[in-house]
């Protein structure tokens, strides 16, 4: 049993994934608050927008580790999400700061549902991939 690079990437991925799960929980809650009128959209966008890029970067980072460690399967599973992130950010509304959410359009029912659905789907994805990474880590450790 040896501690190799793939095992290291999985361990990092597990930790990062835990953060991502928190991010998406926060995301879901934030949009729920918006939908139920608890929060002002400007405030909400101000709290959500700074988290968008960190989330994307964290996700990109673990995939970079997978790439370097040659964990193709895990990488493959994540590629669609990376592409989605790139697409999402490139089509963001015109805004000067970082982030995705524009307080003037976010209350639009379409946008709101899309964002909410996105939050739930990502949450599910991160949860599943958490177990996948756990499994991957064990497999790698055992194989070594």
């Amino acid at each position, binding site marked *: 049993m040896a501690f190799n690079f793939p095992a290291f990437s999985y361990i990092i991925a597990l930790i990062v994934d835990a953060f991502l799960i928190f991010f998406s929980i926060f995301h879901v809650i934030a949009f729920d608050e918006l939908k139920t*009128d608890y929060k*002002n*959209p*400007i405030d909400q966008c101000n709290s959500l927008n700074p988290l968008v890029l960190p989330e994307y970067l964290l996700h990109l980072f673990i995939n970079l580790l997978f790439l370097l460690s040659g964990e193709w399967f895990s990488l493959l599973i994540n590629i669609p999400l990376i592409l989605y992130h790139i697409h999402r950010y490139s089509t963001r*509304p015109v805004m000067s700061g970082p982030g995705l959410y524009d307080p*003037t359009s976010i*209350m639009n*029912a*379409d946008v709101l549902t899309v964002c909410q659905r996105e939050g739930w789907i990502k949450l599910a994805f991160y949860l599943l991939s958490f177990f996948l990474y756990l499994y991957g880590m064990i497999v790698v450790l055992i194989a070594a």
Partner: protein
Amino acid sequence: MSNLPPNPYNNIPGAPQANTHTGPQMFANQQFGQVPLSQLPPGFAGLKQDANSNSPLHLPPSTAQNSVLQNVNNYNQSASSSPAFNQPGMLPPQQIGFQPSPNRPPTVKPTSVAPNSNPLPPLSSANQSSVSNANSSSYPPNFNQMQRQINDNASPIVPSSQYNQPLMNGPPSGPAGPMPPTSSPYPVSSKHFSPPPMAMRPPSGGPGFGPVQQGPPGPVPTKPPGPQGLLPNQPNIPFSGPPRNSPLMSGPPVSGPAFNGPPMPNTTIGQYAPLPPRPGQVNGPSVLNAPPPTTGPGMRPATIPPPTGALPRNGPGPGQPMPNPGLMGNPNMMSGPQSLPAGSQGLPSGPPSLPGLQPQMGQQMAPPMTAPPGPPIGPMSGPPKSNMQGRYPQMPQSNYANQQPPMPPQQPMKQYPQQYSTQGLTQQMGQLSVTKQGFDQLWGHQMVDLLQCRHILPEYPEDPPEIRLGHQFTESPNCSPDIFRCTINRIPETNSLLQKSRLPLGILIHPFKDLNHLPVIQCATIVRCRACRTYINPFVYFVDGKRWKCNLCYRVNDLPEEFQYDPVSKSYGDPTRRPEIKSATIEFIAPGEYMLRPPQPAVYLFLLDVSQIARDSGYLQVVCDTLKAQLEQLPGDARTQIGFICYDAHIHYYLMSDGLTRPKEMTVLDIDDVFLPSPESLLVNLGERRELVKELLTVLPQRYSTPGVPASALGAALQAAYKLMAPTGGRVTVFQTCLPNVGPGALQAREDPNARSSKEVAHLNPATDFYKRLALDCSGAQVAVDLFLLNSQYSDLSTLSGMSKFSAGTVYHIPLFRAQRAWQAEQLTRMFTRYLTRKIGFEAVMRVRCTRGITIHTFHGNFFVRSTDLLSLPNVSPDAGFGMQLSIEESLSDLQQVCFQAALLYTSSKGERRIRVHTIALPIATTLPDVLHAADQQCIVGLLAKMAVDRCVSASMSEAREALINVAVDVLSAHKLAQNLPAGSLSSALHAPASLRLLPLYLLALLKRKAFRTGTSTRLDDRVADMCDMKTLPLSSLLRAVYPDLYPIHALHDHTPREHDDEPSPDPPRLQLSAERINSNGAYLLDDGETMIIYVCHAVSPAFLSDTFGVTAFSQLPDDARTLPRIDSEGSALLQAFIDKLNDDRPYASNVLLIKDNSPSRQVFTERLVDDRVESAFSYYEFLQHVKNQVK
């Protein structure tokens, strides 16, 4: 503006007050008329028989009469339905009657009509002529009632005098009362007038009431409407009414003193404002037969007897309608609309013109409905009609009147159930095609073959389809369609049904529209649902005397004690007589808990661009002059503040502090980090420093007349404005003439002039979010930014408009502005004058609540959406309209109706916190045909325009255009499906439901608007400005912009009804926008709201030229003239009167442009003929073919 004195939009603050004081009489009478307006739920029938009450409602019920009438009615009804069976559901177009008749039928002169034209043909004959419509007649048109309430009457209970400003938005003067509706597409007010209703009216509603209300004050007393109107009825009225009046007499004397006393005996109880109108209530009854008494309460005792004594036989009319207040609801309400020829509504001159009872029906709709192909058509459509018939083709009403003239109110109610069952029957028989077609007609489900029908546009504007609510609310006053309108007047019960119909579901609302008479209420507690905070409204259910059930969330709430107090009868008991229940539009004066901070003062800041381009344009002189002239008219109170900032490459502040004799200019050079050079005196109190302000306005234009720098630091100036205004909130008015190119928010020119006509339009999105963020900051600080863009070159309006869009401002755009061009200067003056003097609401929020199951999907307009149903509007203006797309989230099948309530909470310029509440209720539709036939095509176009603008910005122009075309295709496909018409292109016809027959026309016109057109060179800023208009204009203006009105003016004389000798109001029919309608010997006026183009063809008769323009030959006519020669001739006066009339219903007068048909600039005119083909766009016929090919 000089030619617009009666413009209802002109709000002259303060003036209304004068009005109410000077004209108590008028209101008094009106108020009386409203007394009976209550709609009592059955449970309350007769609850309140108050001896004190002078209300005619409290007459003893005359059940015998009721039942008789009821029978008659039923008889007619059943008889009427038979012919329908023989009728094909679909009529050839010529029968449908959409084609223009050469002339609008001449108006019937009032005097001759009143006595002669017996409004009440024998029952049997009425039966003949009105057969197929008998059914619909039983529904009183709700919106009519509504409108009346809103427009015609002062609040029944709360007089305006106390709350001067907001109560009366409209023109203040009494005579102005009648005006507003004059040319509005849905004029209402004159409805009361026609004497026929009087005949049926209870004494209370009496003749005096009608004329006084609306007639110009002068003529009123001279008219002897009552007796004449009534007499003809006698033969038909078997009932003896006189005795019924007697109770009445006792009433008034008793109540008189009570009313005259201090209005508020009990302050803890709902505190209504004092009631100037009250005397009138007392008065009302006496007025019935003797108009003169109207003049004063004092006359009452003396005059009352005449009605009963002198005209014993009239009694039944007045007395009978109200046997039981509970059952009948408001006699006035009911009898009004019914008896009235729908037509008479439009005429300001209505009262005298009694067209009312004539049997004919509206030209457009009527024939198809009524016409059994054969003989009946003749009688109905043939005879000359009252001149408004075409416009108000609600034949049911006139029928109704014919059949049961004296009768009234209770009919509709009782009839309704019966018809309801008929409807069920209709559906059952759906399979039997002949039957079905017959019933289709009966129910207004006709179809039109668009390809066959060449004259699809009705000659006179049509009413939106009426809203027919279920039993209990048949008579409830629904919100005026001018204020609140839904794309489908029967809400589909499920989302899948909505999807099947392919119609967009949404509402358009014009919440702060100037209203002439708006009930205003001040009370200690505003009654609202405890769960959803809905305001109590006419559509709530009263569980018992103490509780009510919310019509949005169905929670049962307690009714506060004071709500049961009826301020009219001064008694407790029946809550349905409260104005909240009687009017769907109402305003509350909000108590303290509706304020987060003390109401803000009116604060105005003007940001003036003084860059080189601005100086060249010369706008500053115009603006300063206008402002100086209107300084007194600025809405506000003693706290009003005003300030000025000029900016070019730097920012110039004007200090107007106490000790100064002249304003002191302070220039801040640093535009990257804006600061205020002085903590105070930049915004000064207008009252205290008026002289300084005037001085500044005089000096400014000269100060900036020398050449300046070609730089504009708009962004920095806005930041400064924000800093200045943030503590108070208010309105920032920006005049911009060029692209802001220095400092924060600097922009680059993005437009490629070569791509102006390309298919894809780029740069519709903002280049930076600077202006948007600024607007959001402003919105948070209750500051609105209005933009006047007077550019002569590209100024990136798509970016700049952000500052207004999200701060609830307005964008005004005058392209290529040069003050040297007098007409442009005048246009700016008119625009700016209106802008300065109109009513304004500060720190407003608007919440739109919907019945559970429906949610708001998207908002359209200028605002910031603060939560799912709450719009933040730092300023709200009477010219701003809003749209909302709705989605159906739950099945509505267990509901009777769906309600929407818009509540606008604002601070008036007088520092009062007020809530204006509009409520609309719509029935539910369960079948696809019902949905399709209840569509409101105009509203749909209004909503689609807004949706298409969004689509342009979020996707692309071509996608938006395609989506618009697809709407037509989808809807017609859905209709085909619903009607089981042969599939595919086998059939050569393109059928549309009558309710949607204009949709393709409007859509095509929309595609050719500046906003959406491709292939024609369009400046990007013009396009964007047009898009801004689409988003914010109220529906009537929007429609006019989309499909301009074209009138022939060479024969104005023939279309001028002549009942007022002093005031001709020409009323020519509209023409479709096609070159085929343009005769070479004619002259035409095309009105798109912004410009009225007068197009004179070369072969026009010299007589017309000399009479109208004062020239003898066509060649002498000035081309491209911006003014009309004012000569003293009849033709000129007529044309002027017509233009004035058109100008009446818009915020400010339009430009006038005279074009000859050989002029090089006639393109301006021809490009607006949207039915015709232009290089790159379909003609109407091609468009239909295209749609037809796509319809599956």
